């Protein structure tokens, strides 16, 4: 398998807080990779660093063998590296269909395309993806009126609409009704298999991520603590200690 994303020696400090310290990991094309770690261990910070949300203090990030460390957020997104937000972000005062339509890929849009209407295929795709995440009946509601869990699903559907190559998901099951979580896992797997989207997933729910990911990376206090298969991670004493708060 070829490497899609290569993170090398990435460090990020906020004043005195070391949020990421020399983190290196890679994401193979077509894989589902998990990123775990206790609260405040630097997972979201690493996502932000990858997508160019803020400049990093050290290290390099390569996507498809291309240096992206210094690119800006929208440029990186247009390359096909997309992220969702832990707090969930949607366009609250627009209905779900419009949220979807404006999420079509922007890479090849010229100046004049902004004056055009959305083609029929886009509408059909928007509706079928809304159906896929189970929001079809809510498609004309304002996104801001959806519940948190529904917004999470909408944000996921919007990401799919964008046709990314690599999707970084920040806690996709947080706030989702436990009875629906199996459905989410299954959808993530289908997206990975059928649409060929590589996934890097932050997840606190251990049973979810152990089932989903082929490989896991565990962060603790800003450092990469351990990497390996779910089985190796599950039994790794350092990981167990980190979660139990042992020094």
């Amino acid at each position: 398998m070829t490497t899609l994303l290569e993170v090398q020696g990435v460090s990020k400090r906020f004043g005195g807080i070391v949020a990421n310290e020399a983190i290196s990991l890679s994401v193979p094309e077509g894989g589902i990779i998990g990123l775990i770690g206790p609260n405040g261990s630097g997972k979201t910070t690493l996502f932000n660093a990858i997508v160019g949300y803020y400049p990093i203090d050290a290290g390099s990030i390569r996507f498809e063998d291309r240096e992206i460390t210094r690119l800006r957020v929208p440029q990186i997104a247009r390359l096909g590296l997309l992220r969702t937000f832990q707090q969930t972000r949607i366009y609250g005062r627009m209905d779900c269909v419009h949220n979807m339509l404006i999420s079509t890929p922007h890479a090849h849009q010229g100046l004049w395309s902004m004056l055009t209407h959305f083609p029929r295929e886009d509408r059909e795709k928007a509706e079928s993806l809304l159906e896929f995440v189970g929001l079809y009946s809510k498609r004309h509601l304002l996104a801001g009126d959806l519940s948190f869990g529904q917004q999470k699903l909408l944000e996921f559907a919007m990401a799919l609409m964008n046709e990314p190559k690599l999707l970084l998901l920040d806690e996709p099951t947080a706030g989702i009704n436990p009875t629906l979580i199996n459905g989410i896992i299954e959808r993530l797997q289908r997206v990975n298999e059928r649409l060929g989207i590589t996934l890097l997933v932050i997840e606190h729910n251990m049973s979810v991520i152990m089932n989903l990911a082929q490989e896991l990376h565990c962060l603790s206090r800003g450092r990469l603590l351990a990497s390996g298969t779910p089985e190796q991670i599950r039994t790794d004493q350092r990981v167990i200690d980190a979660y139990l708060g042992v020094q």
Partner: protein
Amino acid sequence: MKRAPVYEYLLITGIGVAALLIPWLLPNFITQFTFLWVMVVFALTWDLLGGQMGYNSFGNVLFFGIGAYACAVVQRDSGLDYFTALALGLLCAALLSTAVSALLGAGVLGMRGHYFAICTLGLGVAAGEIAGGWEYLGAGSGMVTPQYPGGIGERDLFYYFLSLTITGTGFFTLRRLYQSRFGIAINAIRDDEDKAEAMGLHTTRYKTVAWCVAAFFLALTGGAVGNLIGFIDPRDVAFSGATFGVWMILMAILGGKGTIWGPVLGAAVFHLTQELFWNFLFGWQRVALGALIVLIVVFFPQGILGWVREAWPERFGQCVDTDRQGGEETR
């Protein structure tokens, strides 16, 4: 996009017919109606950024002033006959203003929220000061626009239809823009610009185009108003932040931000109220206007249309009830 309901076409036709007949139906009020069209452009172009894109500009009057001056300078210096000079002046006004907005936009539109608002406020004030000290533009004593080559009645009629044309073009341009990808994109920027960037939207491009469109129509209006008043004062006409600059915002908020009809309605209500105040409240107009502003903000924070929309959401194609929506309306 959603197809416009029939009553919207009826409304447009009705307003269009009335607008064409007004000079003959209400000949005594022709100048007031000319200014009504000007007010509509003010409100619509302000709302393009303030309502649709979430960027509250306090300095849009800058483009109005640039337009007024650019047009007047061309009229003064071109040596052409009145109408050719005016046409050329309006063209130059629009182009210059658009270019300035594109250049400024690159820097100013990078700021968000209050920073953007304060910065645009500064731009408007600075422009007034510069114009007031620039000999070429008549400095503090301003500029006088050329005499219209015809009777006063003909002049009024000419500027009525010029304003109407600018307003009509502006209205239909914005309406078309709001129905296209552009409209949805600037709404997305309004709702969450960080998200829009994270999704790869060309946010800078959309924001700049939005500002350029506003600047374009404001400049045309500026050119027309300079001639209508016959005199361009740097601080009281061209870059008048305290009147035009504030009215733009008020009218858009009064009618309902973020809609195409809200600013139109707001401009009409505001202009009418203001005319009444000026005619009947001798000496107290400004106090009354101030009180009106407070009332608007306190009682109609969403504007008239926003308030109506909250009362009858279904009328606005907005679904509140999951069982009642049909897919048909969007096809």
